[in-house]
């Protein structure tokens, strides 16, 4: 605690208390005129303000001049610690997870391409969730009609999933080998006949045979 031998003259001390309270309680910085109206007995308001400023100097709260007016403000270096970032664990929806995977594997990819690949329109907010998570980012426009925006992954994406780089993502064959690529043997027999027709545009009814995942 400070042991500044303050001159305990009652008047200046009381004036400083009042000044302190007025500045604290006011919603806006108080002008010199406003302060003078409240402290008519103070001869040297400037000196009193400087004294109060010195008292708070280096503290968590500082007395600052804003033009002709004065106010208390929390010290700027502490601002970041006033607001708490509260972690909130969330799950990613299945749709968002799939879109994330498509962006990761097919980047740079446009929204229309994602929709075409999944056979359904991208619902509002799915990309937003990934943007908010900091995992996808715009990667410039494609030089095709309409100049659509393309999307790709961020370093934070690599960081979150513990990937060194994008080529660390396992390929389709590796996924198949690890059992993660889930397809039914009976269907593969038919599909083998039309292996070369991969690039056909898909109509809306293509979902009929697929599993309905509730999207």
């Amino acid at each position, binding site marked *: 605690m400070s042991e500044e031998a303050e001159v305990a003259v009652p008047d200046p001390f009381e004036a400083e208390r009042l000044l302190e*309270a007025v500045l*604290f*309680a*006011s*919603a*806006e910085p108080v002008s010199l005129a406003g302060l003078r109206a409240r402290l008519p007995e103070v001869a040297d308001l400037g000196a009193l303000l400087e004294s109060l400023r010195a008292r708070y100097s280096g503290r968590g709260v500082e007395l600052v001049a804003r033009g002709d007016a004065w*106010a*208390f*403000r*929390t010290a700027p270096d502490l601002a970041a610690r*006033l*607001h*708490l*970032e*509260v*972690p*909130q*664990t*969330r*799950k*990613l929806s*299945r749709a968002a*997870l*799939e879109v*994330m*995977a*498509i962006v*990761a594997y097919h980047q740079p990819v446009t929204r229309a391409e994602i929709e075409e*690949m*999944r056979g359904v329109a991208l619902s509002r907010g799915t990309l937003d969730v990934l943007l*908010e*998570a900091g995992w996808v980012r715009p990667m410039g426009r494609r030089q095709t009609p309409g100049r659509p925006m393309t999307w790709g992954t961020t370093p934070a994406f690599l960081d*979150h*999933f*513990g*990937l060194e780089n994008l080529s660390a993502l*396992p390929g*389709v064959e590796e*996924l*198949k080998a690890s059992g*993660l*690529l889930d*397809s039914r043997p009976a*269907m*593969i027999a*038919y*599909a083998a*006949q*039309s*292996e070369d*027709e*991969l690039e*056909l545009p*898909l109509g809306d*009814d*293509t979902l*009929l*045979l*697929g*599993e309905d995942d509730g999207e």
Partner: protein
Amino acid sequence: MADRPTFDDWDEIAPTADAVDVLLLDIEGYEGPIDVLLTLARDQKVDLRQISILQLAEQYLRFVAEARRRNLEIAADYLVMAAWLAYLKSRLLLPAQPDAEEPSGAEMAAALAFQLERLDAMRKAGEALIGRPRLGEQVFARGAPEGLRDIAKPVYDVRLYDLLAAYGAFQGRKTEVRLEIHEAKLYSVDEALARLSYLIGAAADWQKLEAFLPPGLADPLYRRSAMGATFVAALELTRQGKVDLRQDGGPFSPIRLRKATR
């Protein structure tokens, strides 16, 4: 009990000759009979613990009687209280009965005094509270709060496995989709109906079903679908009476058809 300064100094009520008159003037301002009793009690200007309940009861009864004489509207609970106080008064004046089931008059009076004292204490406590330096009246909070925010920072519970599983599922679904394209090459019943309706006109005699199949049957799946569709079309045209259909040799024997003769 001497050290209860806060609750012993009674508010000064203007000393009037007749407190009842004052009460009658303000009959609307009272919150029920207890409120009236408390006001009358304060007029006795003693500690409520030493109050004369008998005197209080008499004053109250006078108040009610006077109100009725002047045709002032008084609520039923004032009358109930009057009846009860009249009863209490009689109990107080009669000698106490030993072994009585009910509380004695003195006990009832003491309980009423307690009731009045307790309410009076609360009334004074309310005044003491409202007389404190109150926030926003005499004491002030920070006028320009900078605020403390709890920023929700989502942390997603998603592992690489989930991501890869999602991509695997997506790829798997894409594979099934290829099957759909393949299905489009099947021979449809509509096609079979059109072809059969056209060809049957020229078939006067019995013909095997296979004669009506479309060309290009190299693909076994396509051939099977053409066979099935043509058979369904034949059944449909038979039902419509446009075609006659026969199978002479039991299951799997040739199916023949011709233009309906009827």
